[in-house]
């Protein structure tokens, strides 16, 4: 079922993605490789997005990352599609088990080969990453795409100085002497706001405080001027005032380098501050994808509604009781049939049983706003206006 073609749509070889850029997809073609079953709605939660946009620097179509284990296949990512342009920020929001970290590791090619089955298409500026040779991906990693991890203390090597780690990354991609690389490392540390960089460059990671360590990791990631920066929960381990500093730093550096940024987090406040677009993930699938304004003013998925309702907020009148989402995130080995959110959804009974059996298509409800839900746009509008928005 691999689809590592360079044109992810239009041709008959790709049986599921519809043609063209406008995508209220109505084509129904049988899915290959589905063991003979034909689902009633063949879009099946993916591909409702057509060809990559003209200015998309990173384009992901129908990414699936499965891990075969003794207990079964863990479907960590099961049909993800999005575009990202240079200079823009995509916020990926999800809870534990939503597949957001696996997404970022897959884009960077950081999974151990042999343990993972990756299909779909990930195109970094016309270079296909799915199925690419490891040497090819390694040449891109650090140079054109870089990652900031959640816990800098465990992500950086404790035995080497911070300077050494930055120099190492720089020298792999640039033929320069160590002295030149060290000057560059000092320059980078200064740019991320570490005081006295010329003496700090020789310190070890444990000698930095949490916020400074994260800055050092950002310096390491940006040392080769990558065009894509993936930040995986960069501020979860940090205090709120330090978090504010780091988010400001990422924003400033993004406009300076014009990089595309993917920000992965569970904090809706953080994505509201920083993202241009937001993608909400649940059980390895994208359930909503649109601009940040759209997601906060017109969310189109019950899970997003649930997230917005269950958070206590500083900017609203205090409610007596929070409205949590019932239940718990599902196991990725036994993902519920049909819509994976249906066991927890308060509106699953309004879909005539479709939620339990048929995977909802990832379709456009408004221009540029995609969601995977069986409810009709009118129903969603009604529920949002009457049930959800007044309580926020």
């Amino acid at each position, binding site marked *: 079922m691999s689809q590592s073609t360079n044109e992810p749509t239009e041709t008959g070889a790709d049986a599921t993605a519809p043609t063209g850029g406008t995508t209220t997809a109505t084509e129904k073609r049988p899915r290959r490789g589905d063991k003979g079953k034909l689902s009633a709605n063949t879009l099946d939660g993916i591909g409702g997005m057509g060809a990559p946009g003209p200015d998309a620097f990173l384009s992901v179509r129908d990414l699936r990352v499965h891990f075969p284990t003794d207990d079964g296949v863990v479907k960590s990512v099961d049909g993800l599609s999005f575009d990202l342009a240079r200079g823009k920020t995509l916020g990926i929001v999800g*809870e*534990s088990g939503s597949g957001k970290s696996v997404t970022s590791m897959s884009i960077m090619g950081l999974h151990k080969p042999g343990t993972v089955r990756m299909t779909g298409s990930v195109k970094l500026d016309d270079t296909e990453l799915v199925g690419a040779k490891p040497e090819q991906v390694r040449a891109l990693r650090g140079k054109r795409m870089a990652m900031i991890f959640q816990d800098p203390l465990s992500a950086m090597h404790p035995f080497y100085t911070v300077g050494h780690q930055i120099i190492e990354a720089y020298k792999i991609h640039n033929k320069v002497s160590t002295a030149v690389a060290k000057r560059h490392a000092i320059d980078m540390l200064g740019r991320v706001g570490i*005081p006295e960089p010329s003496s700090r460059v020789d310190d070890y990671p444990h000698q930095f*405080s*949490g*916020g*400074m360590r994260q800055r050092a990791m950002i310096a390491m990631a940006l040392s080769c001027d990558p065009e894509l920066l993936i930040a995986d929960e960069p501020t979860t381990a940090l*205090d*709120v*005032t*330090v*978090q*504010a*500093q780091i*988010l*400001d730093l990422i924003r400033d550096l993004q406009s300076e380098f014009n990089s595309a940024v993917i920000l992965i987090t*569970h*904090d*809706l*406040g*953080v*994505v*509201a*501050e920083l993202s241009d677009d937001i993608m909400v993930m649940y059980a390895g699938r994208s359930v909503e994808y649109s601009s*940040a*304004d759209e997601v*906060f*003013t017109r969310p189109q998925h019950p899970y997003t509604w*649930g*997230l*917005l309702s*269950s*958070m*206590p*907020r*500083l*900017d609203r009148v*205090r*409610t007596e*009781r*929070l*409205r*949590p*989402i*019932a239940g*718990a*995130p599902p196991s990725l080995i036994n993902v519920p049939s049909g819509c994976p959110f249906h066991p927890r959804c308060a509106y699953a009974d309004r879909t005539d049983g479709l939620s339990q059996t048929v995977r909802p298509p990832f379709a456009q409800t408004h221009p540029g706003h995609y969601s995977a839900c069986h409810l009709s746009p009118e129903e969603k509008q009604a529920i949002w206006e009457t049930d959800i928005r007044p309580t926020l």
Partner: protein
Amino acid sequence: MTTTTVKPTAAKQAGESLLQVTNLTKHFPIRRGLLQRVVGAVQAVDGLTFDVARGETLSLVGESGCGKTTTGRMLTRLLEPTAGTILLEGQDITHWSTGKMRPLRREVQMIFQDPYGSLNPRHTVGTIVGAPFHLQGIKTERGVKREVQDLLELVGLSPEHYNRYPHEFSGGQRQRIGIARSLALKPKLIIADEPVSALDVSIQAQVINLLEDLQDELGLTYVVIAHDLSVVRHMSDRVAVMYLGNLVELADRDELYSRPMHPYTTALLSAVPIPDTQRRTKRERIRLQGDVPSPVNPPPACRFHTRCWKAQEICRTETPPLVELAPRHQVACHFPENIDLPDPALHPGASTPLQAAVAERSPDGEVPHDDASQAAPRVIPLDASGDASRPDDA
């Protein structure tokens, strides 16, 4: 799931003080060298004074290193205070021995932060939640197992989980097990150390609702230690803000969030990201420079002065006292925000508005001074026979 309609059955005796803390201090010695000489101290908590009324929820808020977890552990007497007093229902428990504290453990319980680390992985849920009964030698009418199963139901777990092991549960469920354990002996006071920060957002809401329901149903008093200001605003009646071991502001919840007076509190509140894209450009965020200083060498006088945009010379030389500047609203700052203070020129001996305000209050016009230059030197010699406690990872 827990019952959704809970009738408050325990009457709250508002105003009665359950816990009184005065000048609570904890310094962890730093030892170096072959002879393990004490060369300094981590001044984790310094001079905390507050009360907790029966039935209310007091939150201790602050960032890493402010000493809130250390305070929580002192309140449960897991740590020995270096100075100060703790009064529980009028009894001075500050330096009670383990044996003397044991009966009191029925009154004061703790919920820990890490749902993965706070449950013994080799014990079943039944053993974990039933342990308090066995340790205290409590005789139950229907047997410990029945009590444990009732507790599990109370927190929203199924009684069949009695024989399962912690690893079979998710983080939210483990936190519920921890809560069930803390409720076993029907305590009066629960210290909850970051009870929801390790949980996903949707599970956080469930556990917060559960804690509130239990408080109504069982008449509990909570001291909640947290750093998430949105959660704190939801759960608390009163909020105490800590910075580097000091209490900088203490007020009723609505008062604190609508009228924060200490610059650190205003900076904290402005740093919290709001999930609303419309407000992104309109907000003016106060950017604090730098990091929190080390508690080994805290800045003299006002510990916040190194990062404060309002700091002046007096902030470096005189420690601001904790003064009640509005009803039930105490602040420790020479130049508090959001309040009009009298002109210092009108009061002899007052060089800041705060001192002028204090002068207006005390009958003989004396202004309290706390001159940092006369404070104890940075290296705090602790006698060799004294504090044997080790620095915590908190």
